[in-house]
């Protein structure tokens, strides 16, 4: 059924781990924001995509130093998310999660429209300097770039860092309190809006960083990068939008599955290629997760205002 030669899989494991690291990174960004504000940010991919495109323009068409344009990408992610959170967070704060998520759909549309205007579809590519530094790992027999290493390590470190931040700092504790009950937290004297704004900013910076890494690892294409949010969403859903560590593991699994499906689907005969289906992996994983979560019946007691 499957190719049994392990050598064939090796390069895909490397790609998969790198992708998985970024998926985990975005997943953590999504989960942190959801826990603090109750907003499932569906614009996560679009924000990163636009940051990466701005960064690309700065590198290709201006004499702006490269390293600064990478920072611009990350800062753009933080800025847009922060601005959206400050403007549209409070009026939607008491609505149910569905309405909040739809607000970010509006943001996605705005960003997609702007991107199609400023960067009409054509082939572009982002090449981070870390992709130049390759290593041949002798015992594994594969080539590996620093971008791939960075992606995985960054994903792991951000997960652990955010986890520690939520656990040990005052702001982190406030965010966890907000996740439990917004009203009670505010009665206790926590500046709710400021804490929420911090969550928006942090999640946005992660969106920018993820966009930058994905634009090198996958492709610099507005629509593609926007839809990569699905893969991170799958990871976040597996973690029930709660656990950061599960998000990290799930992100890596989703990345590995997507990459490893390439040799498996190519195997029957390269001429009749099923490999186009590998991009369906995140969707399938997410749908299976939802099926699994649906074992228990839940009656939502959301405070809607309709």
């Amino acid at each position, binding site marked *: 059924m499957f190719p049994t030669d392990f050598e064939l899989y090796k390069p895909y494991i490397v790609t998969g781990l790198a992708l998985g690291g970024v998926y985990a990174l975005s997943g953590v960004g999504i989960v942190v924001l959801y826990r603090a504000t109750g907003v*499932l940010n*569906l614009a996560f991919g679009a924000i990163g995509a636009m940051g990466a495109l701005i960064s690309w323009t700065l590198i290709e068409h201006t004499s702006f130093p490269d390293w600064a344009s990478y920072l611009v990408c990350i800062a753009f992610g933080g800025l847009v998310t922060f601005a959206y959170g400050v403007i*549209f967070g409070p*009026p*939607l704060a008491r*609505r*149910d*999660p*569905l*309405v909040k*998520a*739809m*607000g970010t*759909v*509006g*943001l*996605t*549309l*705005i*960003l*997609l*429209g*702007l991107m*199609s*205007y400023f960067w*009409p579809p054509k082939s572009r590519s982002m090449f981070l300097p870390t992709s130049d530094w390759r290593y041949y790992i002798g015992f594994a027999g594969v080539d590996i770039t620093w971008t791939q290493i960075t992606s995985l390590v960054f994903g792991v470190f951000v997960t652990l860092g955010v986890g520690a931040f939520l656990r040990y700092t005052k702001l982190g504790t406030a965010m966890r309190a907000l996740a439990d009950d917004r009203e009670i937290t505010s009665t206790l004297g926590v500046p709710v809006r400021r804490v929420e704004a911090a969550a928006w900013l942090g999640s946005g910076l992660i969106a920018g960083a993820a966009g930058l890494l994905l634009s090198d690892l996958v492709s610099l294409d507005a*629509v593609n990068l926007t*839809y990569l949010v*699905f893969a991170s*969403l*799958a990871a976040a*859903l597996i973690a029930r939008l709660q656990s950061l560590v599960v998000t990290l593991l799930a992100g890596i699994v989703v990345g590995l599955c997507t990459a490893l499906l390439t040799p498996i689907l190519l195997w029957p005969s390269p001429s009749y290629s*099923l490999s*186009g*289906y590998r*991009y*369906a992996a995140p*969707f*399938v994983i*997410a*749908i299976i997760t*939802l*099926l699994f*979560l*649906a074992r228990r*019946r*839940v*009656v*939502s*007691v*959301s405070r*809607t205002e*309709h």
Partner: protein
Amino acid sequence: MRAVVIGVLLLFVLLGLPALLSTYWIKILTATTIFAVVALGLNLLYGRVGLVSLGQIGLLVVGSWIAARLFFLTNLPFPVVLLLAGLFTGAVGTLIGLPALRLSGLHLALITLMFAGMISIVVPTVNFPNGGSGFLGHTESSLGSLAVRRPSIAHDDDAFFRYAVIVAVVMFLVALAHVSSKIGRAWAVIRQSEPAALAAGVNITLYKLYAFALASFMTGVAGGLLAADQGKLYSYQFKTIDSVTLLAVVLIGGIFSVWGAVVAGVLQKLLPALLNDWFDFFRENPDFLFVLFGIGVLQVLVTAPEGIVTQFPKDMRNLGRLILKPFRRRSGPAEGSP
């Protein structure tokens, strides 16, 4: 009175428009009608039951695929094929919705979005039936490919437009009948509060599932119309983003009245064509419309949850009052003083 106005409008659409407009605009209006039916499904789902689906275009693809397959496979009369396409799509929708409906509304939105994403990956590989052999019924040769047949009474574009409008009217009547029945009341209580619905003995999952099946049925019927309208379908005609813009226009159109769906159809299909025709800017940047839709969604969510169809007449009344105010005061100063 209201029924008379609607009747006159309908007569004008059926008889007047085909006589007045060119074939190009009639084809645009046919697409508008078809998308109004798709929007109607989503309008019912969100407006009546409080469920959001981000995968309606995915279901439209399923509906048109099934309809096209049935047209080539059988010689059944056109309305029967439409009905069957609707029923099959309803079954597919039920299968997708069943697990998510047991969870929260957010989960349904996500699972349908995932479904739309999956369809957008599968469709380019599977392709649409065009008279080929085998289960998929697709042939690559341009000589062997056939167009989906249209109903015998509606071969030309004008007649097909009328046909589509009549099907759409039937769908709207079905929707209105549901809203004012026991089912509509059950939906209303679910939308207000699920615990209350549970306490009142309403079978929440069943009624939600029925709403989702009905919306999928309507989308399937619209898919059948679309297959016959286009003749030959291609995967690039359906984009995942269309599911998202559909939700946007349904929200902007207004979800608390079924007529919002008409506005939604107009925004989705007629507005882009008009902007294309009027402005060079939109001809060069058709996707810039997304920005307007996005702003519209945020505006609806934050300030005007009722959407255009309810908000616009209200605004016009206020505007009228504002314009008439100075005149009124001059004629009778006692009237305005508190």
